[in-house]
């Protein structure tokens, strides 16, 4: 049974989606989604424990052996991403029950959960597969369902946001497809491990260079690196709260995983950093993204949009770590993928609580929330501290490693930028905190209180995780380090 886990990891959520449509009555779709997601989490945890000692699981899908068949290949990084995706969905789904009931019409609930499971399928599939074309299929499964999910937002602007995302996401995925076609043309294989062996002699080939350009631009569009982030702020702002929390924590992160996988495993660090000036390009874009997006975030009047711009900045940090091209930087990136997912997940769940109670996330509607929704705003403060990178929170660990990596390279200005932009993060978090705690609610404001426990518990689970992973780092940092060493070692 355990030997079949790699396949079941993807197949169970995939089968859960139509099941939600068949059993559409009452709370059943939610229950199915929840159980499926918890099962996926259990399987991801089992897989991670199996590869924890550096072993690599290779699974031939349908018994067709690689390179002809599709291979699922799980090393530490894959398993870590699987755990992240399944973990986030397992934490977000209990929250979904009440939040979705409030934000989405009753007759569309089953479609929501079905779409959610498809999104989960796509993301898990992207993280597990070892076949370049299969990646494209899973990108499209997760993207198509996320376009539909974003369009379910209450505001009509959700529709235009979803359309923009659809256009940009499809262009990104098609670019990726062109790149895969080109490397298939020169190597005749689609299996990643096989590609890794056949590409090195072809490093000077123009086809390989073009393929790398198409694949990396395609993935960068999906992971919303500045200046390819234009779809992200609106999509995050107008999507239903649960979708925003899940997408912000996982979708861009899995795309970053793909960048790592293609950069290090398929093309190889030698090609990416010595033949192509990837380090310089990524460094420039990441720094520009971190600085500009942090500034833009300060001037937002909608807190969800503020956090969306902050996400663009945080993606910049992750890419920054990759651009160092050393183990410390890579570790920082991978651990920041994890820590930022936990932090942003918690913050967007807080937004879900506020939207549930107050109906909107505009900055002025936060006035006096510190007194009226004490538990919710306390979660915001703690997760906000983690976003800034204050010691004893998860965000500190990743920023610490980012600065260490920069110093290892001797890039002092970069370390200074990291510290300075953390102050910018403090500014935009403080704006919200100040309004919530030090500004009184308008006299005519309707009475508000903390949302029900069904919303508070998942929010606090993720908020607690922000603190937990700031103190006990053996899970996050330990696996991130191991994954970084595996990637750097060409494994």
């Amino acid at each position, binding site marked *: 049974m355990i030997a079949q886990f790699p396949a079941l990891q993807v197949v169970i959520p995939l089968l859960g989606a139509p099941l939600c449509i068949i059993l559409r009555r009452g709370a059943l779709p939610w229950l199915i989604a929840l159980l499926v997601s918890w099962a996926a989490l259990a399987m991801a945890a089992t897989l991670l424990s199996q590869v924890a000692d550096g072993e690599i699981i290779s699974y031939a899908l349908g018994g067709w052996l690689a390179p002809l068949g599709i291979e699922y290949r799980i090393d530490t990084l894959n398993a870590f991403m699987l755990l992240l995706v399944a973990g986030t969905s397992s934490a977000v789904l209990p929250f979904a029950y009440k939040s979705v009931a409030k934000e989405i019409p009753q007759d569309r609930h089953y479609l929501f959960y079905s779409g959610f499971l498809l999104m989960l399928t796509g993301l898990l599939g992207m993280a597990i597969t070892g076949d370049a*074309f299969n990646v*494209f*299929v899973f990108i*499209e499964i997760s993207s*198509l369902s996320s*376009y*539909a999910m974003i*369009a379910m937002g209450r505001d*009509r*602007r959700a*529709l*235009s946001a*979803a*359309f923009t995302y*659809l*256009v940009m996401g*499809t*262009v990104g995925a*098609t670019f990726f*497809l*062109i790149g895969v*076609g080109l490397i*298939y*043309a020169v190597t005749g294989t689609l299996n990643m491990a096989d590609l890794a062996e056949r590409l090195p002699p072809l490093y000077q080939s123009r086809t390989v260079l073009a393929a790398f350009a198409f694949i990396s631009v395609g993935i960068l569009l999906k992971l919303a690196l500045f200046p390819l982030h234009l779809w992200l702020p609106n999509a995050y702002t107008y999507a239903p709260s649960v979708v925003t929390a899940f997408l912000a924590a996982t979708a861009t992160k899995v795309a970053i995983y793909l960048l790592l996988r293609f950069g290090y495993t398929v093309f190889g660090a030698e090609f990416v950093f010595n033949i192509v000036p990837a380090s310089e390009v990524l460094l420039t874009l990441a720094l520009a993204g971190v600085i500009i997006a942090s500034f833009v975030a300060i001037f937002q009047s909608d807190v969800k949009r503020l956090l969306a711009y902050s996400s663009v900045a945080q993606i910049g940090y992750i890419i920054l770590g990759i651009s160092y091209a050393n183990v410390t930087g890579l570790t920082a990136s991978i651990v920041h993928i994890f820590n930022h997912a936990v932090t942003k997940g918690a913050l967007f769940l807080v937004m879900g609580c506020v939207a549930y109670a107050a109906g909107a996330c505009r900055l002025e509607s936060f006035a006096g929330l510190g007194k009226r929704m004490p538990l919710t705003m306390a979660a915001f403060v703690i997760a906000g501290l983690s976003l800034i990178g204050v010691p004893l929170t998860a965000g500190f660990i990743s920023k610490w490693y980012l600065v260490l990596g920069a110093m290892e390279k001797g890039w002092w200005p970069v370390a200074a930028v990291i510290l300075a932009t953390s102050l910018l993060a403090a500014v935009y978090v403080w704006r919200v905190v100040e309004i919530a705690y030090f500004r009184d609610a308008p006299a005519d404001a309707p009475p508000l209180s903390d949302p029900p426990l069904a919303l508070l518990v998942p929010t606090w689970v993720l908020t607690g995780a922000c603190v937990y992973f700031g103190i006990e780092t053996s899970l996050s940092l330990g696996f991130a380090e191991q994954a970084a060493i595996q990637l750097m070692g060409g494994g």
Partner: protein
Amino acid sequence: MEVLGHFNYWVVVVLMMIGFYALIARGNLIKKIVGLNIFQASVFLLFITLGKVTGGSAPIIAEGITVYSNPLPHVLILTAIVVGVATTALGLALVVRIHESYSTIEENEIADMDREP
């Protein structure tokens, strides 16, 4: 000869640019989707061209035939076509809903309406 021999690839590039241009330059959402379709179709053509083996027959086992075209890109593109159809359907469905709530499908008019809340 070199130019003619790459005829299919020239078509791919031309179609790709037409599609991409329409996608970027047109403000009408339906035209954007048409552009997206042309763009994707060019990639399908690219893959199918890759699979052609000179003198190869259709990949069906038959007596007396030893050279076959590579069937793998065909299969990949079948999948990609399905994905393309799903994207088009979803995009058009979104356009219908955008038209219902904005009463327009021009990008700049929608942007104007979004700005004034």
